[in-house]
């Protein structure tokens, strides 16, 4: 059929029968993708995004029960056997997966793995020609020195490079449809920006339609033509990017858009939390699956599940009250009102003492080889002389990509012993002078909340025991412990009666609240938050961020907030320090640094963060960084950013010389400080 759409999914349902229930992972979804179109599928974890696209590829596990129809250019894919489907896969339909580290076979060279796809679909192709084409493809996806790298094995490539290889494999046979399932979720923002760029390029070269699955609204805002929002196995809203972002009609979409911090607006308004979690897919309620979290639910919502109905040209939403929203009778602000900040009367008085002072701290690790005779083969300067301070009631955001030394910094502070080099003062007391008892007492003042809420909580303990744990170390009576736990759970927005339950009964957001409650048990002055929201679904993040903001106001706490998400940092922090390869390259008040970043790395980092606003995203100009982070063992002379610095590239050679030979120190520029020799010459634009 000539004018059939490229892909048509009709009433697709996927069930996974379990021992005594059935998981309805995908329920009766239908959508169409036209040639050359870019569709973004968004939704939170478990909403069925991956399962629905794996169904298109015919790659579901054999336990899956699929019904409905999937037509590719008018031909039914569900009727084809594996052999017939194999002829389409990789040739007509290609797929890119989330985790690039494990997606390539470790024992074959990347060249072979690219050529494999070529040879499978073109029997006439010679091995020689396939190898040449593999080099060509590597060049297209931006691997430097492709002639040499084509012979490399996957383990010799970084995550970002492996994802490029995956894209090369996907576009090898000029497919008509590329499905990318969270292709950038495991990557750092600057690498994510590179990969999205390559994906766009791949789309232009092949003219393929692209389905981009993501949970990050920002990622689709700038790239997609159309968006489909999934919730609990259903499509709940579809439409053009502008319609969905600017005129959302399903309360879930509405809430999602209001809950994500946006790099541009962050910090100016409070986030709107979207509490609760989706219903369990093996025991769905009869009505609207969003009913329990929906602030405007009415009785009818509990009875029948609303179908996807058209509300405008090619804009559909599945909500009984969508017509009221369309008519303007219900405004976004009515559905999800912004929470009020803590009134001034309830705010703790802070005097502005210095709570934590870190001066020139260094932490080097030596790498050794050999079991008996160890010899030094390199040195990793994980933290190489960093200084910052945090005052009472203040939040310092420490940002940087993975491997830049954020976690080492935290560990060094938590040790409460004298660092390898430099000094750490807590409340004005140098930790190297502490005795053992004093050190134990000091531990009360400084607590930590970890990234992964599940891993951080012992699954065999009740919530009460978990929260009370820090108290037992510090000799508090049982009765006092119980009373305190009740208070703490109340403080973090959980019910005191939940104390007797176990961690697995809670959602990710709730677990993180438990982690915060535990950290607050000893009434600390400083909380160290290590990526506290990055493992949470976007809809849940806002609630935890708001909670942290409130706690700070009410208890006069200080935070060291470590994150890689700049928007979150802008939302919550007062000061920010940007780290690169063990150094702070820029620091200052959040308002100053975000408005006028001076270091080229800060600029690149900011411009890499996708903004969940299609208009803003389209008018942006990106500063893309070249390549990956240098190996941590490399000895770099001069500025450690020079290999990737976009400013360096446009400088006069006489000025470049200084970058290559002299290590720049932090110095005051305007109102913040940056470690760049030529910050005054920096004319790179960031939006």
């Amino acid at each position: 059929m000539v004018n059939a759409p490229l892909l048509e999914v009709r009433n697709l349902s996927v069930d996974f029968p379990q021992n005594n229930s059935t998981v309805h992972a995908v329920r009766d979804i239908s959508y169409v993708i036209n040639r050359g179109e870019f569709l973004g599928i968004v939704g939170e974890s478990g909403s069925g995004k991956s399962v629905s696209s794996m169904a298109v590829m015919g790659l579901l596990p054999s336990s899956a029960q699929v019904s409905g129809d999937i037509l590719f250019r008018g031909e039914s894919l569900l009727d084809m056997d594996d052999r017939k489907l194999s002829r389409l896969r990789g040739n007509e339909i290609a797929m890119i997966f989330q985790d690039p580290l494990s997606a390539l076979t470790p024992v074959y060279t990347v060249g072979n793995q690219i050529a494999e796809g070529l040879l499978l679909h073109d029997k006439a192709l010679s091995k020689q020609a396939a190898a040449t084409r593999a080099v060509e493809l590597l060049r297209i996806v931006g691997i430097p020195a492709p002639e040499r790298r084509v012979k490399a094995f996957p383990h010799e490539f970084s995550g970002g490079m492996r994802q490029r290889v995956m894209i090369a494999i996907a576009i090898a046979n000029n497919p008509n449809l590329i499905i990318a399932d969270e292709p950038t979720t495991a990557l750092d923002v600057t690498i994510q920006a590179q990969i999205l760029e390559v994906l766009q390029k791949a789309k232009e070269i092949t003219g393929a339609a692209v389905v981009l699955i993501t949970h990050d609204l920002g990622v689709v805002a700038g790239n997609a033509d159309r968006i489909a929002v999934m919730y609990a196995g259903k499509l709940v809203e579809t439409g053009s990017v502008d319609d969905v972002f600017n005129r959302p009609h399903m309360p879930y979409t509405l809430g999602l858009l209001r809950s994500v911090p946006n790099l541009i607006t962050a910090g100016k308004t409070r986030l709107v939390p979207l509490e609760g979690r989706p219903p369990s897919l093996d025991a769905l309620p009869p009505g609207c699956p969003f009913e329990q979290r929906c602030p405007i639910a009415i009785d009818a919502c509990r009875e029948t599940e609303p179908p996807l109905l058209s509300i405008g040209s090619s804009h559909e939403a599945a909500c009984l009250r969508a017509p009221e929203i369309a008519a303007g009778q219900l405004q976004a602000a009515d559905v999800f009102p912004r929470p009020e900040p803590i009134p001034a009367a309830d705010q703790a008085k802070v005097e502005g003492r210095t709570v934590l002072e870190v001066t020139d701290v260094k932490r080097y690790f030596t790498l050794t080889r050999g079991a008996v005779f160890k010899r030094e083969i390199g040195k990793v300067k994980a933290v190489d002389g960093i200084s910052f301070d945090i005052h009472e009631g203040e939040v310092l955001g420490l940002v940087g990509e993975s491997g830049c030394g954020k976690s080492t910094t935290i560990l060094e502070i938590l040790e409460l012993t004298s660092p390898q080099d430099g000094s750490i003062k807590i409340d004005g007391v140098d930790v190297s002078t502490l005795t053992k008892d004093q050190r134990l007492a000091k531990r009360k003042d400084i607590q930590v909340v970890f990234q992964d809420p599940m891993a951080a909580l012992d699954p065999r303990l009740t919530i009460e025991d978990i929260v009370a744990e820090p108290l037992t170390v510090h000799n508090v009576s049982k009765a006092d412990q119980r009373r305190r736990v009740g208070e703490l759970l109340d403080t973090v927005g959980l019910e005191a009666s939940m104390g007797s339950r176990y961690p697995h009964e809670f959602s990710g957001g709730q677990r993180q609240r438990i982690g915060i409650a535990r950290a607050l048990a000893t009434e600390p002055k400083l909380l160290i938050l290590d990526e506290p929201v990055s493992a949470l679904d976007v809809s849940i993040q806002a609630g935890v961020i708001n909670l942290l903001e409130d706690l700070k106001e009410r208890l006069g706490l200080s935070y060291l907030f470590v994150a890689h998400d700049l928007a979150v940092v802008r939302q919550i922090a007062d000061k920010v320090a940007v780290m690169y390869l063990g150094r702070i390259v820029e620091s200052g008040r959040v308002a100053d640094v975000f408005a006028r970043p001076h270091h080229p790395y800060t600029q690149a980092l900011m411009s890499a963060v996708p903004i969940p606003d299609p208009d803003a995203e389209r008018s942006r100009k990106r500063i893309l960084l070249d390549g990956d982070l240098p190996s941590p063992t490399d000895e770099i002379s001069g500025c450690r950013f020079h290999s990737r610095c976009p400013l360096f590239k446009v400088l006069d050679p006489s000025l470049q010389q200084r970058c290559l030979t002299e290590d720049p120190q932090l110095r005051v520029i305007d109102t913040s400080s940056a470690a760049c020799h030529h910050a005054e010459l920096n004319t790179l634009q960031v939006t």
Partner: protein
Amino acid sequence: MIVYLIRRFINYAILSMIATVMAYVLACLALDPKARYLGRNPRPSDEAINHILNRLGTNPDDPILSRTMHWFTQIIFHGNFGQEYNYTSVSHDMFVRSGVSLQLLLLGSFLGAFFGVALGVWGAVRQYKASDQIVTYSSYLVLATPVFVLGVLLMIVATNFNNAVGHQVIQFTGQYTPGLNGTWNILQDRVSHLFLPTLALSMFGAAEYSRYQRNAMLDVLSADYIRTARSKGRTRGAAMVRHGVRVALIPMSTYFAYSFGTLIAGSTFLEKVFSWHGMGEFALDSIIKNDINATAASIFYVSVLVLISSTLAEVLYAALDPRVRI
């Protein structure tokens, strides 16, 4: 890489040298060569016994250290492993007999590995299906049966088979029939003798390997790169073989080396059962006859085999896994 392998080889070589020397010392301590003569009728005179033992270099009255030194220098400088109790040269016997043993051992371990891998992969792919269960239970059954029992059972089956056919198709004593003429006849005869002991040894090997291969394969089956291979257009089966089995073989290479020892032990008993005059028989007999030189030599033989198989395993590992190549 080559340097690395050579280093490993030297490592292993030193280890097996130490093992052999220790074996000699142990044999000296544990075996009593005089006992063989004391029980004779008429009992030889003490002088005669001492004379014989001195000639063999195994007189327990000499200090162990000097005997070990003598024995060791003889091997290092003259390649001479001394003499057996009946004055035949150990080196010569060892050479002839290891030829016999290696036939069985190499063929058995190769076939065992091959079928073990195949069965393991098959079981993993059909996990929990009836066929997988059958493979699992039968391999445990084989593993639980002592090798010589397995040998005897196979002999019984073969006898019944021969009776049914009315012709000695399968032979099971010795390794050949003496006095045959013609290349074809000799070859046929050899195969018919080889069949049963090889079958027993490879059944044992296959049962053991298949367990490990099944586990290795199950780890790999759900790997992301299998999904990638299929998304490229490989069919389920082809993706499994090209990408799955290939990766699942990597841990097996270490395992081959490790389990080679148990195969040697197994073949020792099988030689006895099938009356093969190989190193297994040599080792057992030497212990029974309190022959120190021969016992130590048998241990040397085993340690050399282990040396070779360990080195091969290293080479195989490096060949299979690019991540360890330097």
